[in-house]
């Protein structure tokens, strides 16, 4: 049992650390003391920092060299995030673009698309957003209704609505999953497109969450015309392209986030501050239970890295880590707020923010229920629920759904 780097990894870690030592003075402060507060200033500073990281080879490092990456493996990318955390500097701004959409374009895009979009994405000159989910297409993503109709000149016209779109308010481009043929079964009739976010007919509206902040957006499309060469991965191949994005999403969340910062030691500090709480049996029991589970997640992370290094795909423990993390953090928020009292719910309190953020996080990237279905079926081989949408043309399915809802 060995937590140490291989000689090659140790060498790589040294390089990363040296670069960070030399450049970390340029990193913006986004959290804690002296943090920037003005959203515009944050955006400018964070963009510049991503540009710097890209120059140093620390942004998009898993991308192939020909597109500006370093061609490194997932284990080395973990080394980068560990060292950035150690140095106390923020990561890149455009995690969705560089972590998920860029790799999708690399896998499915045309050479022209790669040459045009990847460089500015990597350097944060152009921020990207992902437009997959809709009000009626979340867990059942293949139910997207945003329609793309082909015009006589080969261009496409988009109509519909997307939701949960992070960064749409300042994104230059978006990757959008739209229905191009409603007369065939739903997984088959979709196409992926690149959309310039300043196109006429696009409206971006902030979606305020419990905290009052708008970290997501709704995006509306009214007769938005996009070029013929904006299709990614071929017509009616949108589902396959989207699955690639979702695979990178799982990898990005799994390896990059280190439990979203929800660590047992962080919660311990808050409880220690109140001696009555620290000696209360019920508080200790609650805290002990959730802390032990969060500790498990740290080691689950190491197991995943160990498996990757061995050339294996990380096992089921990987997929369930998010469920554990979110539920433990929910418990921790309740526990700490119970100790502190209403003051914990002050708008400026980190606990109020966490408590407000978690109910949404529970559904982000797939609800807990969908995750449990997927793991039950794909990992444990349990039979799927019977489905009523298989093989039915999407238009017919929609008609049935409408009929069912009004009955």
């Amino acid at each position, binding site marked *: *049992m060995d937590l140490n*780097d291989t000689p090659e990894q140790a060498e790589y870690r040294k390089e990363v650390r040296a670069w960070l030592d030399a450049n970390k003075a340029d990193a913006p402060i986004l959290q804690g003391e002296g943090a920037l507060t003005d959203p515009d200033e944050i955006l400018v500073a964070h963009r510049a920092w991503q540009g710097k990281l890209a120059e140093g080879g620390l942004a998009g490092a898993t991308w192939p060299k020909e597109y500006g990456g370093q061609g490194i493996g997932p284990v080395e990318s973990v080394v980068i995030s560990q060292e950035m955390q150690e140095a106390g500097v923020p990561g890149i701004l455009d995690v969705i673009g560089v972590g998920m959409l860029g790799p999708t374009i690399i896998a499915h895009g045309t050479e022209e698309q790669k040459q045009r979009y990847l460089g500015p994405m990597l350097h944060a000159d152009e921020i990207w957003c992902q437009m997959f989910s809709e009000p009626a297409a979340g867990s059942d993503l293949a139910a997207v209704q945003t329609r793309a109709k082909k015009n006589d000149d080969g261009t496409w016209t988009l109509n519909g609505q997307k939701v949960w779109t992070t960064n749409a308010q300042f994104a230059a481009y978006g990757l959008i999953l739209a229905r191009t043929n409603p007369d065939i079964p739903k997984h088959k009739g979709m196409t992926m497109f690149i959309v310039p976010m300043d196109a006429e007919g696009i409206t971006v509206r902030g979606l305020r969450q419990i905290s009052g902040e708008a970290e997501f957006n709704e995006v509306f499309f009214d007769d938005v015309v996009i070029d013929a060469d904006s299709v990614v991965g071929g017509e009616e191949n949108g589902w396959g392209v989207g699955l690639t994005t979702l695979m990178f999403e799982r990898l990005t969340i799994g390896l990059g986030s280190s439990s979203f910062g929800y660590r047992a030691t962080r919660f311990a500090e808050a*409880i220690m501050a109140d001696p009555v709480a620290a000696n209360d049996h019920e508080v200790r029991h609650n805290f*002990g239970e959730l802390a*032990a589970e969060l*500790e*498990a997640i740290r080691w689950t992370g190491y*197991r995943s890295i160990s498996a990757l290094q061995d050339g294996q795909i990380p*096992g*089921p423990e990987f997929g369930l880590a998010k469920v554990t993390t979110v539920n433990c953090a929910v418990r921790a928020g309740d526990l700490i707020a119970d100790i502190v009292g209403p003051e914990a719910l002050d708008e400026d309190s980190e606990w109020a923010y966490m408590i407000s953020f978690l109910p949404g996080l529970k559904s982000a990237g797939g609800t807990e229920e969908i995750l449990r279905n997927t793991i039950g079926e794909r990992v444990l081989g349990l039979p799927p629920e019977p489905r009523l949408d298989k093989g039915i043309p999407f238009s017919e399915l929609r008609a049935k759904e409408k009929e069912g809802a009004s009955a």
Partner: protein
Amino acid sequence: MNLGLSDEQQFLRDAAADAFSRVKTVEAAREAIEDDSALPDMWPTAAEAGWLGLLVSEENGGAGLGAYDAMLIAQEAGKVLAGVPLLGALPASMLLDMGGSDKTEAVAAGELKASWLPACPPSSIEPRWTVEPVEGMARPDAPTATVDGDTVTFTGTVGWAPDAGEAELLVVIGVDSSGEPVAAAVEAGASGVTVDADWRYDATRRLATVTLDGASGTKLDLDAEQIARAWYLVQALIAAESVGTMETALEVCLEYAKERYTFGRAIGSYQAIKHGIVEILRRLENSKSLCIYTGFAFSDKPDEIAYAASCARSVAGAGLDFTARQQIAVHGGIGATWEHDAPLTFRRAQLNRRLVGGHGMSTDRVADELLNGRGPVVSVG
């Protein structure tokens, strides 16, 4: 980073599985509930396999292996509910070896059966060494220990000690007049020792309540940290054993959920069933991760042993509890009858959660370590 098993560890694990496969352990777990004599004596199995000397240093005739190796055997034992005396014998052999006992070689060779009497180290809300109560919530002080040269004389009672009923040598922990822990090897037949062998609910676990009334033994040269290590070793072993039991229950549930049909569908297709089984998997995987951490702490991070082992027992203990009930729920009424093995898992879980501090004490210890600034030191590279 490499957290996989070494070739030697895989061999050790496979050998354990093989040894248990030669005994009808699950059948015995059932029969012994009605007939004590139906439980096979697993001391010889443990001796032949070399497990009684697993944690003993090579110069004292042992294998010189680590806690994680022992946990792999416990995991295999847990899979088939084998009544092998790991919880008493392994900590005893470890303390005898570290404490310089001249009995160590005989114990490692399986010629002398030694067992440990559980003693729990102090915490910030229970700032004294305590032992298992015979009944009730109040934890008694560890036996009083009077030290005279190499001889230690104990007075006190230790409840529900695993495997102590069959032992010829007891590793006893008491406290001296200043509250410091003292460990000694006491002959089970020595004057002043009363061993009341018994069992409850899970017939595979042989237990004993031991009363020491001026019973003397030979002092072991151990400090408080070494003595505490035995407690955490057993927490780790119970966690690993629970992992094994959960693994088997998961397999059994999966098989049934795929083949049993209601309303024209396999029951595993219903979310209520599926999600419950996935919850077993979630708790199992978390427990496995913490067992790996515990093994790592024993080999590389001694300061984190208390924390890691307590995390593992807490999560695996609650996990087994959940699993035992879920297994019955998946199987419906039949799961609550002797027609099925699920009641045996349930009996194991019910006793486990109350044994050697119960997993609740480990949960409190996790909090205690973190709230006193003794959490994990995370460093990378």
